Every structure is written in structure tokens, then in C-alpha cells.
């Protein structure tokens, strides 16, 4: 039953991705100012949203782990698995953002990279979560989960500060396309295409996140089992 549901969900996700691709490449009109290169927004923006969402999931998982680690070991382990899965899949999506951004920037701004508020924040966010994953690799034993949860909270706390500091420093990233000033906004066909891609990439991200979460849960079960066996022997 579980496999059947996962199969159906995977099929729907792939269909959504294909439909999103069709919308982005064939349906949405070329941009009046930027021509074809703007289409990268259909991959850049959804990836960024998914990455930020997953980092938030990672933060919540870390907090749950710290809150429950004494009284509800089961919930704490689930929280830790969410924290790990969110950070790992988030880093992958964040990498996509950091790759697609400069490709667009090279055409639109004429430079690959600039130390602007959002670019720097995303890069620092990426660095923080990579260091989080490194800590999980390096630290051994059960204390690793606690240490990782603490670092996860520190990292999340750092993000708004990085953002504000860079905003005061310099900003070059395009102003918000939605909810910005009067000149902001998109053609309706573009909005539809963007929304479809948002949904598709979110569905895809959630699929990977679930799979990663399950793998980590299996790991935890095996580790507990091994510890139990060692005790019994």
C-alpha cells in the first residue's frame, strides 16, 4: 500500500514537472526586456522557495529534538531525522539556486556574481548548512544529534542578521517581482507558468525529503537494534 501511494505520488510529480517545463519553455512569452534568458526564473525562484522551506523544516526539527530529547525519545529521533533531511535536501536546492543565479546574472547584469544582500545571504546560508552537515559527519556517537541541533538553531538565527547587514551594505538583486512597486508584476501567462513550476518543484522536493527522512529513520532503527543486540549478547 505504502509503495503504491509513493508510486502514484511520484507519477503525479513527474507529470507536474513535465507540465511545468512545457509551460515555462513553450507557453510563457519571452520577456520584453530580457528575452529568453528570463526563463531561468522558473527554476531559480521555485528552488529558492523550496530551499528556504526545507531549512525552516530543519530548524523546527532541531528545536523538536532539543525539546523532546529527555521525555519523548521517539519524537526526538523523528525531529532529528527531519532536521537532517531538511538540511540535506535544502542544501541541494540551494546549490541549484546558486548555480542558476550566476547564469542569469552573467546575461542580465554582465557579471557572474555580486556581493548583494540576497546573494550573500543565500551563500552564507548554504555555507552554514554545509558546515552543519560536516558536523554531523565529524561528531560521533549519540551526542552528535544534540550538537547538530544546537548548531542548526545558531545557523537559523544568523540568517536574518546576515540579510540585514548586507542590505545596509549594498543591494543589486532585482527588487521583489511581486508586491514590489508599481512597475513590478508579471504577464499572466508568466505567473501561471511560475506557479506550475512552484507546485512541481515543491512536490519533487517533498518526495526527496520524504525518502531521505525514511532512510534516516531506518538508520536510526538499525542503530538502536544494533545497540540492543550488543547489550543482549
Amino acid at each position, binding site marked *: 500500500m505504502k509503495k503504491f501511494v509513493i508510486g502514484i505520488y511520484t507519477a503525479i510529480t513527474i507529470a507536474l514537472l513535465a507540465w511545468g517545463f512545457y509551460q515555462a519553455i513553450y507557453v510563457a512569452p519571452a520577456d520584453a526586456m530580457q528575452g529568453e534568458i528570463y526563463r531561468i526564473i522558473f527554476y531559480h525562484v521555485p528552488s529558492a522557495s523550496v530551499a528556504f522551506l526545507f531549512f525552516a523544516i530543519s530548524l523546527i526539527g532541531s528545536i523538536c529534538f*532539543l525539546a523532546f530529547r529527555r521525555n519523548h525519545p521517539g519524537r526526538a529521533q523523528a525531529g532529528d531525522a527531519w532536521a537532517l533531511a531538511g538540511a540535506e535536501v535544502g542544501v541541494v536546492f540551494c546549490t541549484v539556486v546558486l548555480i542558476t543565479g550566476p547564469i542569469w546574472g552573467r546575461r542580465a547584469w554582465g557579471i557572474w556574481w555580486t556581493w548583494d544582500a540576497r546573494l550573500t545571504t543565500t551563500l*552564507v546560508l548554504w*555555507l*552554514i548548512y*554545509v*558546515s*552543519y552537515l*560536516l*558536523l554531523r559527519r*565529524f*561528531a*560521533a556517537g*549519540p*551526542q*552528535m544529534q*544534540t*550538537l547538530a541541533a*544546537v*548548531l542548526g*538553531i*545558531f*545557523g537559523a*538565527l*544568523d540568517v536574518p*542578521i*546576515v540579510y*540585514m*547587514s*548586507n542590505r*545596509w*551594505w549594498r543591494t543589486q538583486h532585482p527588487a521583489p517581482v511581486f508586491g514590489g512597486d508599481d512597475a513590478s508584476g508579471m504577464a499572466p501567462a508568466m505567473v501561471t507558468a511560475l506557479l506550475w513550476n512552484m507546485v512541481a518543484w515543491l512536490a519533487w522536493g517533498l518526495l526527496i525529503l520524504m525518502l531521505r527522512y525514511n532512510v534516516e529513520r531506518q538508520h536510526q532503527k538499525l542503530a538502536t537494534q544494533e545497540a540492543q543486540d550488543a547489550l543482549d549478547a
Partner: protein
Amino acid sequence: MISVLLTHLVKDLRIEWRSREAINSMLFFALLVVVLFSLAFSPRGTFSQEISGGVICVATLFASMSALNQAWAREIRHQVLDAQRMAPASGSGLFLAKVLANFLFVSVVQLVLAPVFLVFYNLHVQGQAWLLALVLPLGTWALVANGTFFAALSIRSRNRELLLPLILFPIFMPALLAMVLATGSILTGESDPTLWIKLLAGYDIIFTTVSLLLFDVVLHAE
């Protein structure tokens, strides 16, 4: 808590007074960084004014790594850390004492290094020099408070010395940016550093509070 803090602080200061390990190694390392940077960039005139803020911050940052790692490695020997874990006193006193001790060490290094730095980079401060007495301690506190916390965190891992910079540098970035920009604008006198000083103060308050709250969790992690 005050008596716990004082006990730990006096102990750390006494150890340092007798061995002078931390200060000597930091001092020499920071001196090396300053010399290396001046060889690599051959700073002259306005260019040296512009980069010197960054150089002194990065030199402090690199040099403090050795002292921060030493701070807890000393406690690991003879299971002192385990004893402290079992002590009924709260961890925050221990943490604050370590931060204060390291803050004093790094500040001493900065004070000794400052004249050398002024000579090597031919600096003359264009802005209000007294503001440096605000910026450098605030930046050093940000570095030392976070550094002590993450050193306690990374000492529990397999490759202790390696891990500290890897997890500290990303978190420290906004403070480094604020510190570099504030020192730079004081040295060149071209812009107003107030905003960056405020940011540094905010960073210090936020991260010191969170470190104090979470230090017991790290100390008792098992």
C-alpha cells in the same frame, strides 16, 4: 554564579600567566598574518588604508583559533571536563569565565599588535580614533563568545581542531563584515561607522544570550 565565574576566571588567568601559551602563540601567528598580507598586497597610500581594517580583523580571527581550541583541550586532559559536568554549578558561569579569559587574551594581542600594524601599513587614522576602542572590543567579543561556544561543541567530535573554523566562520560572517566595515570607515574617515557598531552590539547581545542559554545543552550532550 558569580563565585563560580570568578573561580574559573582566576584559574584560567593563572594558568595563562604561568605558561603564556595562548598569548604567545596568538601574538606570533597574528604577526605572521600581518607580515604575509603586507608581502602579498604590498600596501601603499590610500590602498593600505582601505584594506588594513580587513587585515587586522582577519589576523585576529585566524590567530584566535589556536587559543580557542586550547581553551577546552586543556579541560579534556585528566577528565576535568567530566568533573565539571558533574559539578552542581550551572554551566553558564564556566562559559562566561572562559569567554572573559579569552577576551582578555585576544585584547592583549590586539593592543600589542596595533603599533606594529600602524608601522607596517603606514597608517594614520583619518576618522575618530577613539571609536576603535569600541569597535575592536565589540568585534572581539563576538568572535570570542561564539568561538568559545563552538570550541566546546567541536571538542566533542573526532577531529576537534579542524572542525572549529569550519563551523565558526560561517556563523561569524555578519560580525566580521560589520567589524571590517566599521574599522575601515574609521581608518579612512570616509563614512559613518555608527550603523556597523550598532549591528555588532546587536550581534553580541543575541549570540551571547543564546550561547548562555544553550551552553548547558552542549556541556551535557550525551
